[in-house]
C-alpha cells in the first residue's frame, strides 16, 4: 500500500476537520471565552486553512506578562473548553491539561533565597512539556502515548490507552490526568468537534495537534490576551520562539532529570 493507514487517516481527518470549519482563531481572541462564542466561530469559519507544520514544536511562556495579567485564567478556560475536559469539582478526580502553579512550586530548584517575592509567588503556567526524552512514552505498555517523529509532539491516543497509569507516575511534571469516573457527565459545554474520553483512560495536552492540522495555533496561545504564550518551530531560525529564546534568558522545568522539555519560560 502506498499510503499507510495512519497517513490516510491523518489526511482524512484533516480534510474532514477543514471542511467542518476551521474554528476558533477569532473566538479565542475575544474578550471572554464562552461556549457560545466558541460555537459561533466554529460555525462561521468554514474556510479550510493549510495545516501548520514544524519539525520541532516548542512553546515559550513569558511569566512576566503572565504575572501582569493577574488572575486571568483564559488559557485554561479555552483549552478545557475546546478539548471537552470535564470538571468534576473535586481535587481527587480533577483533570487538567494546562493550569497555573506558583513559580515556587514549579521551579523550586531554580530559585534562590534572594528571589523577589513577586516572582516566587507569581504564576507559572504549566502543561505537558512535550519532552525530547519523554519518560511517559518509555513506560507506556501499549504505545498509547508516543513522540511524533515529524514534529516532536508527545501524542496521546485514548483508544489505545488501557489505563495502567504508569505514564501518570512517570511524568515528573504532573501533566497527566486520569478519568477515574465517566467524564462525559461532567462536561459542561460539549464541543462536538473534539472527541470526549471514556472512563479509565489517561489524558493530557497534545499541543492542540487537531488545531494545528486545521491551520490554527493552540487554543491557549490564541486565548492569552497578554500574549504570554508563543508557539512555533524550534528548527526554524526565524521563528518567533527562536527569536524569544535568542533575546531572553529562559529556563525549563526540572532540567536535572534529562527529559529535555520543549516548553521554555522567560522569568
Amino acid at each position, binding site marked *: 500500500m502506498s499510503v499507510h*493507514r495512519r497517513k490516510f487517516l491523518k489526511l482524512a481527518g484533516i480534510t474532514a476537520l477543514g471542511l467542518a470549519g476551521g474554528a476558533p482563531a477569532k473566538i479565542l481572541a475575544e474578550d471572554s471565552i464562552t461556549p457560545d462564542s466558541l460555537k459561533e466561530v466554529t460555525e462561521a469559519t468554514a474556510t479550510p486553512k493549510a495545516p501548520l507544520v514544524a519539525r520541532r514544536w516548542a512553546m515559550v511562556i513569558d511569566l512576566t506578562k503572565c504575572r501582569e495579567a493577574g488572575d486571568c485564567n483564559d488559557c485554561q478556560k479555552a483549552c478545557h473548553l475546546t478539548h471537552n475536559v470535564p470538571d468534576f469539582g473535586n*481535587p*481527587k*478526580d*480533577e483533570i487538567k491539561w494546562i493550569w497555573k*502553579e*506558583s513559580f515556587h*512550586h*514549579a521551579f*523550586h*530548584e531554580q530559585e534562590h533565597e534572594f528571589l523577589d517575592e513577586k516572582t516566587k509567588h507569581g504564576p507559572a503556567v504549566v502543561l505537558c512539556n512535550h519532552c525530547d526524552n519523554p*519518560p511517559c512514552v*518509555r*513506560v*507506556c*505498555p*501499549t*504505545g498509547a502515548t508516543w513522540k511524533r517523529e515529524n514534529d516532536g509532539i508527545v501524542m496521546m491516543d485514548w483508544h*489505545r*490507552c*488501557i*489505563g*495502567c*497509569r*504508569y505514564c*501518570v*507516575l*512517570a511524568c*515528573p*511534571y*504532573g501533566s*497527566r*490526568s*486520569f*478519568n*477515574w*469516573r*465517566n467524564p462525559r457527565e461532567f462536561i459542561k459545554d460539549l464541543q462536538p468537534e473534539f472527541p470526549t474520553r*471514556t*472512563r*479509565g*483512560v*489517561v489524558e493530557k495536552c497534545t499541543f492542540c495537534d487537531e488545531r494545528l492540522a486545521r491551520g490554527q495555533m493552540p487554543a491557549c496561545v490564541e486565548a492569552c490576551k497578554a500574549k504570554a504564550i508563543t508557539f512555533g518551530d524550534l528548527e526554524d531560525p526565524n521563528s518567533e520562539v527562536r527569536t524569544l529564546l535568542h533575546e531572553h534568558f529562559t529556563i525549563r522545568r*526540572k532540567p*536535572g*532529570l534529562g*527529559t529535555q522539555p520543549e516548553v521554555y519560560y522567560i522569568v
Partner: protein
Amino acid sequence: MSTVENKEQMPPAEPPLILGNQTFGTVTDRISKLAERKTTLTWLAALSLAASVALLLLGSIGYLFYEGIGIWGLNVPVAWGWAIVNFVFWVGIGHAGTLISAILFLFRQKWRTSINRFAEAMTLFAVICALVFPGIHVGRIWVVYWMFPLPNQMDMWPNFRSPLLWDVFAVSIYFTCSLVFWYTGLIPDLATLRDRATTKIRKIVLGIFSLGWRGGNRQWKHYELAYLILAGVSTPLVLSVHSVVSTDFAVSVVPGWHTTIFPPYFVAGAIFSGFAMVMTLGIITRKVFHLEDFITNQHLEKMNKIMLLTGMMVGYSYACEFFIAWYSGNAYEQFAFINRAFGPYAWAYWIMISCNVLIPQMFWFRKLRTSIPVMFVASIFINIGMWFERFVIVMSLARDYLPSSWDYYSPTTWDVLTFIGSFGLFFTLFLLFLRFLPVVAMFEVKGVLPEADPHHKGGSH
C-alpha cells in the same frame, strides 16, 4: 566389614532430619492418609470460611468492573495504590517455594525435602493472587490483553521498553515454570496415591495425572535429570522475577523509586517474606496434620536462620537507601527519604522497620529461634512488615515533584475488601491442596531417611 570400622570412616553425624524412626512404609502411610481420609469437619469449616472471604474478592472485582477504579482511594499523584502493593506483596511471597525447591536442591540441602511440596504450592497460589491485581488495576479491563504481543488487525504491538511488559513476561514465565516444576515433583507421589486408591474415580484421575509412572530404573533416571534441568531453569527465575518487578519502580524518575539498589533489595525482601509465609503455613499444617516428625525443629530453625539473614539484607537496603539519598546530594531524593521516616506515612515506615528489621533480630538467640510460638508470631509480624514495605515504597508517590499536587492516599472499603479477599482466594487454594494432594514430598523424604543410604548401618554395601 565391621560396624566399628564403618563408624570411624563416617563424618560426624548430623542430627536426623526425619524423626520417629520412620520407614519407607510409614512415610507413605502417614502422608498418603492425609489425602485419602474422609473430609473432616474442621477442613470443611476452614474451606467455607476461606471461600466466603474469596467471595469478597469476587464481589469487589465485580463492582470494580461495573463502576471503574474510581472506587479505590487513588488520585493523582497517587495513581498506584493497594492493587500494586498487593501485587508486589503476593509475588514476593511466591518466591520462597521455588527457592526452596530449586536453589536448595542445587545446593544439596536435604532439609528442603519436608517443606518443598507445600512451599511450592504456596508459591503457585501466591502468584495466582498476585496475577489478579495487575489485571484488575487498569482503567479499561476489557482491553488488558493489549499488554500481550498478540498479532491483531489494529496494527498494535506492545512497547517492549515498558517495565510493565517485562513484568507480564517475568511473572507469567515464573508461574509456568513453577507449575511445571511442582507438577513434575508430584508425579511419583501421585503414582503412589494411584496405587493405593480404593475407588475407581481416584484410580482414573490419579492415573491420568501420574502420567503412567511405574517407578522403574529408567523412569527414575529420566525423572532425576528432568528435575535437575527444571531446577536449573527455575533458579535464575527466582532472582529475575522480583528484579523485574522492582524495575516497575526503579525505571521511573519518582524520588524514592529511582535507585539501582532495587533489584537485589527486592529479591532479598521477597525471600524474606516468602519464608515468613512458609513458616506461618508450615507451623499450622504441622500442628493440624501432626507432622512434627517430618517438619522438625531443625527445619524450622534453618528457616529462621534464612529469615535472619534476608531480614538483615533488607535492613541493610533500608539504610543504604538513606545513605545514597544523602550522598547523592539530590534534594528531591533526600526529601523523599526524610519524608518516609517523618512524613505523613511515618507510621507505616516505623511498622516496616519494627517488623522487618527489629523482630528478626530475635533469631540470634537459639532459644527464641527454636520456640514455635515465638517464630509463629514473628513470621506473622514479618508478613505484615513486608506488606508495609511495599506500601511505603508505593506511597512515595504522595510527595512527587509538584507540591501543589501532593495528596494523602487513604484506602476505601473496596481497597480493603479486595485485599482481604485475596487472602480468601489464597487459603481456598491452599486448603484444597492440603485435602487432595500429598503435603510432603514422600519419595524425597524417603531419600533422606537412613534407610535410603546404601552405606548406612546394616546396608547392603
